[in-house]
């Protein structure tokens, strides 16, 4: 079971997230609602990356690929006048699943540094593909409208979009929690721990890891779908390796191999960027050493510094 401190932390965090739209509206500080929405989107991306990084031992340095795929699904369909949210969502999910299947199929045959480099290289290929697609804005990016769902649920309203993002954050955490504790999750975590042994006791681990790779890609693709809606603008920048690195840093800061850590990692990273970049554009100079200290002394990140020690399902 989770420690009291952690449960309290989650409870407060959730209540704060729920309260942000009315609070920011009352205080006339819409900017902060947008910032919180952005944090949640990257939290979803980080949670999905942690499924690979923290539970599967798959160091994917190309997770931005799915962020880009999901957001381009929205923008390209909208470009052709298709603004139906369900269709856009389905295409975002389908396209990121396909991209993850292809990338996973290739790179899961390798290990270690090769795995990292191939995920990076394939994602950079997507980045340059985005740049070369002049019709969809090339490297200037492309403006897009918000997805249309129901008459009574207008995504054009920032508050509605905010709560949709919150819904998907909670959903992705719930799905991840079930996944990592299921039989499927045992195979994934077992192969992170000792892949040779998994094969020796009879697990064809490749197909399970590939499935996890696709699931993580899809969840991140949903984050991309939401990001396109939030920014109403899509650019190849979403797929740049720097973005992949940022998502990875969020996982490391929050706590690799913990369920909720990446959420706090995403919040911490974006908050830090927001606050410190007001003072200096070289905010990384301050953030870098903090990251190094965290990785050296707190292997389970910010989340792991809270009292209470659990395994697996924390």
């Amino acid at each position, binding site marked *: 079971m989770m420690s009291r401190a952690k449960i309290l932390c989650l409870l407060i965090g959730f209540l704060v997230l729920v309260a942000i739209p009315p609070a920011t509206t009352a205080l006339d500080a819409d900017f902060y609602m947008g910032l919180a929405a952005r944090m949640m989107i990257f939290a979803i991306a980080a949670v999905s990356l942690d499924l690979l990084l923290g539970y599967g031992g798959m160091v994917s340095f190309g997770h931005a690929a799915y962020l880009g795929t999901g957001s381009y699904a929205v923008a390209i369909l909208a470009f052709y006048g298709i603004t139906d949210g369900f269709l856009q969502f389905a295409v975002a999910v389908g396209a990121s699943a396909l991209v993850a299947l292809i990338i996973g199929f290739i790179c899961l045959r390798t290990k270690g540094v090769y795995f990292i480099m191939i995920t990076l290289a394939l994602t950079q290929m997507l980045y340059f593909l985005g740049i070369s697609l002049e019709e969809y804005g090339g490297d200037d990016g492309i403006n897009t409208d918000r997805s249309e769902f129901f008459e009574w649920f207008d995504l054009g309203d920032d508050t509605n979009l905010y709560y949709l993002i919150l819904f998907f954050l909670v959903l992705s955490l719930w799905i991840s929690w079930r996944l990592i*504790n*299921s*039989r*499927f999750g045992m195979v994934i975590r*077992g192969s992170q721990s*000792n892949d040779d042994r998994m094969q*020796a006791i009879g*697990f*064809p681990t490749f197909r399970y890891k590939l499935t996890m790779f696709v699931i993580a890609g899809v969840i991140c693709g949903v984050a991309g779908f939401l990001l396109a809606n939030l920014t109403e603008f899509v650019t190849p920048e979403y797929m740049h390796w720097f973005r992949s690195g940022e998502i990875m840093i969020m996982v490391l800061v929050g706590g690799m191999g913990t369920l909720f850590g990446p959420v706090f990692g995403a919040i911490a990273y974006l908050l830090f960027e927001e606050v410190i970049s007001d003072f200096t554009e070289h905010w990384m100079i301050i953030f870098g050493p903090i990251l190094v200290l965290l990785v050296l002394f707190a292997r389970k990140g910010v989340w792991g510094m809270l009292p209470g020690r659990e395994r697996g399902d924390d």
Partner: protein
Amino acid sequence: MTDPILKGPILKVQGLNKHFGGVVATDNLDFDVEPGEIHAVIGPNGAGKTTFVAQIAGMIKSDSGSIMFDGGEIAGLSAHARSRRGLARSFQITSIFKEFTVIENVAMSIQAHDGHSFRFWRRANTDPALMDPARALLDRVGLGARAEIVASNLAHGEQRQLEIAMALATGPKLLLLDEPTAGMGPEDSQSMAAFLRDIKGEYSMLLIEHDMDTVFALADRITVLVYGRAIATGTPEEIRGNDEVRAAYLGEEA
């Protein structure tokens, strides 16, 4: 017990070869294990014993040769496919899931042989279909009281026991035991030997072992491997009396 002549050997290796560059690890090796038998493989360091086990288990691909197991050719199969046919191995260097509890380690083996694992929703480590047989097996190898401990916190001897328990949990027809007493003190070694004697007859075993007392006490047959070649195969008495074996391996000791 079934008549071995009628049933034939559970494992029959013929003409097995493996070279690593210029080094011969397995040299035209013939080998078999009868049902219920313990067939030990001994030999000096570097004789190719572990390579031989890895070839049978499917971790190392052979250059040539046939491996018949339980009536079918398995030489072309992957390690996990061989495991599902009923081959289980233990590792010379302890190979367990260190971050998991002892019982989860065993449950992992049981899960591997309980249908596919594309089951995404139900919690695994409270599933009685996995945990009950895992607990029973832990009781049997004497680790019952340690079930909830994280495996990395076990003593070395206990980790070796867990290693065997994980192999047994796959419900194997043949156990490939690569130095089950490696690194153990005399007391632990003796209890491991006692355990193997206890399960003898229930499982067919290929046993690699350095401790000669254990080998001669347990084995029905012994094959002596030198530079990847079997220089002798026979009962413990025959091996003890074989001059070539003495010269090559047992040396002063025998």
